[in-house]
């Protein structure tokens, strides 16, 4: 499955609001259903029998529960809603109204009940089975003649049988992790309870765990090397026949083996570090302070510190004086303007020559001009050059009432006389 598919799958789960909520009493009820099968009873429950089993279980695990019957009914409803209990009816297989654990519930209960620790024997047995399975796959690959042979006798065993065996090892690894956590907790408990007297027991626990890890690591190394060698043989066969799907399955199996080995190394390293820490603790703290007085005296020291404070003396490297790189000062000229004689009277601008625009426009119209550009050309020709630009607007204003079309700037741009001015052209109505 590609990463993109992962995202879509997770989004669908989130959208659906998928959730599992099982409290201790409910889990015990599921286990009680499962264990009925172990003692030879039917694991199909009629409604009344199921309610009675749940009620009895809840009474056992929650003696203070006020109404166990009601609690049992609610538990059944919740577990049904989460599809941990399924009602088997409607398909004629069994009669209606019987309940059983769903495969998910069976897995959850079995995982809770399983005592799967990775021991020398279990690891040796499982890894031997893995190598045997791979060897059988190698034989099948050498003899495979058809596509069905490759698929049924090579790929499927790799993906199902070997992968399941390796999953079994990984499950037991989790058991061993839990076992180590318990050993650490036990060491703490022994120290808290007996301090100096706990030394013998702690050292025995440490050594036993270390021995187990060393042995498991050795076995893992030995078996994974064998398994990789067989995988290499199968890979050569698959490459020769161009079996891409088998190569993919081989790569997955190889990755799973590497993960096992990496787990073994990491647990060994983590335990070595813990082993060292505990031995240092035993040597430097427990043996040197057999009566456990140091903690008490240190508490007194801390309590008294605010009244008689002291500090540790440490070396300190002198601060180096780092000179800034030389920089030429930036000259910033003052923002000033030359002094002026503000008292002098300001010269008035020359007055624009008086032009009778209306008369000139009328004269142009009388002369036969029918467009704005023509009138403007006639008017501008009669005034000095520096007054022409400003005059165009006044000409347009004088003609605004007579425009037939183009008024409003939609007409084409047309040069006025020989330039350099241009106006949007208006066609004028004929004069009265």
């Amino acid at each position, binding site marked *: 499955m590609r990463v993109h598919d992962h995202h879509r799958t997770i989004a669908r789960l989130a959208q659906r609001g998928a959730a599992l909520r099982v409290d201790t009493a409910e889990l015990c009820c599921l286990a009680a259903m499962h264990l009925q099968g172990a003692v030879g009873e039917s694991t199909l429950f009629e409604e009344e029998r199921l309610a009675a089993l749940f009620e009895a279980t809840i009474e056992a695990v929650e003696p203070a529960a006020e109404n166990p019957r009601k609690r049992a009914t609610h538990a059944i409803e919740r577990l049904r809603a989460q599809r941990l209990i399924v009602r088997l009816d409607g398909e004629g297989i069994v009669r209606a109204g019987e309940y059983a654990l769903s495969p998910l519930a069976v897995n959850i209960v079995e995982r809770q009940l399983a005592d799967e620790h990775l021991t020398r024997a279990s690891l040796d047995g499982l890894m031997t089975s893995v190598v045997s399975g791979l060897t059988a796959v190698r034989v099948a690959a050498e003899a495979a003649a058809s596509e069905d042979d490759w698929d049924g006798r090579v790929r499927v065993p790799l993906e199902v049988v070997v992968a399941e065996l390796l999953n079994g090892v990984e499950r037991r690894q989790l058991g061993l992790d839990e076992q180590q956590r318990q050993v650490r907790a036990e060491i703490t408990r022994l120290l808290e309870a007996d301090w100096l007297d706990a030394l013998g027991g702690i050292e025995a626990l440490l050594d036993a765990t270390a021995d187990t890890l060393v042995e498991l690591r050795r076995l893992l190394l030995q078996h994974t090397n064998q398994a990789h060698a067989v995988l290499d043989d199968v890979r050569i066969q698959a490459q020769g026949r161009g079996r891409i799907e088998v190569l993919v399955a081989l790569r997955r199996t190889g990755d799973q083996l590497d993960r096992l080995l990496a787990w073994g190394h990491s647990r060994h390293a983590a335990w070595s570090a813990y082993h060292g820490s505990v031995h240092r603790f035993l040597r*430097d703290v427990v043996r040197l302070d057999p009566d456990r007085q*140091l903690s008490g005296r240190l508490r007194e*020291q801390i309590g008294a510190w605010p009244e008689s*404070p002291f*500090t*540790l003396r*440490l*070396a300190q*490297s002198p601060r180096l004086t780092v000179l800034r790189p030389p920089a030429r000062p930036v000259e910033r000229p003052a923002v000033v303007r030359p002094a002026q004689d503000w008292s002098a009277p300001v010269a008035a601008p020359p007055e624009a020559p008086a032009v009778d625009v209306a008369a000139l426009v009328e004269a142009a119209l009388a002369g036969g001009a029918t467009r704005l550009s023509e009138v403007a050309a006639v008017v501008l020709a009669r005034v000095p050059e520096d007054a022409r630009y400003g005059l165009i607007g006044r000409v347009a204003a004088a003609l605004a009432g007579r425009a037939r079309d183009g008024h409003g700037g939609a007409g084409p741009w047309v040069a006025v006389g020989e330039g350099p001015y241009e106006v949007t052209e208006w066609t004028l109505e004929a004069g009265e």
Partner: protein
Amino acid sequence: MSDFDELGGGFADLAAVIADGLFPRLDQALRSGLHVDRRAPADYHFLVDAQKWLEPHYQRYGADLVHAPDGFFYLRPVGDRLPVRRLTPAEMLVGQTLALFALEPATLEAGHVTRTQILERLRDLLGTDRVLQALKPKTRARRARHRAEAEARHALLATLRRLARLGFVELLDDDRVALRDALMRFAEPARGTEDLATALGRLVAGGEIERLEVEPDEDDDEPDEDDADDDEEGP
């Protein structure tokens, strides 16, 4: 120098020690107050091998290269040639509290302590007001308690970062702190059977610690001018 150290040493002379690739960084780190323990095995074993030559070398600078029985090295200034760094009250209180944690089996099991645990232990030992005063001296009593708490957590993180730079702890992340062997320096006065005052006098005479003046309590009625506090080492 112990007889054991006389037996060790993989260097022919001081020149060989100085020519080693590790020396410049370690020399600088020791002069900056770093404590080197077994968790840095290459550095630690270099110092074990070079101790015979480095002790007289640093004595010429007015400093002792100390190899503590708990298994770490540090440089202790005894003259005035090397500048002396004195830990702040916050660093001292946090350091002593961490040393207390280091003596507990529960810390051994977890492998670390958290900031919350440290603050809670400090409160148990000294009371909330004193802890806030030590971690954040500028905090005024009338400042909202929740704000003072948040500032104390920030100040604790800044203190832990400084202690980490000196090799007393290792910050696994912003919350979890792994303890290093050098923390036992903070417990030194409590070791042995002599009373605390005698032990402090002995350690002062040896140049290991220095007494501090007791600062008067801050006047709570002072105007609070620095509300926009200088949290230079916030998260």
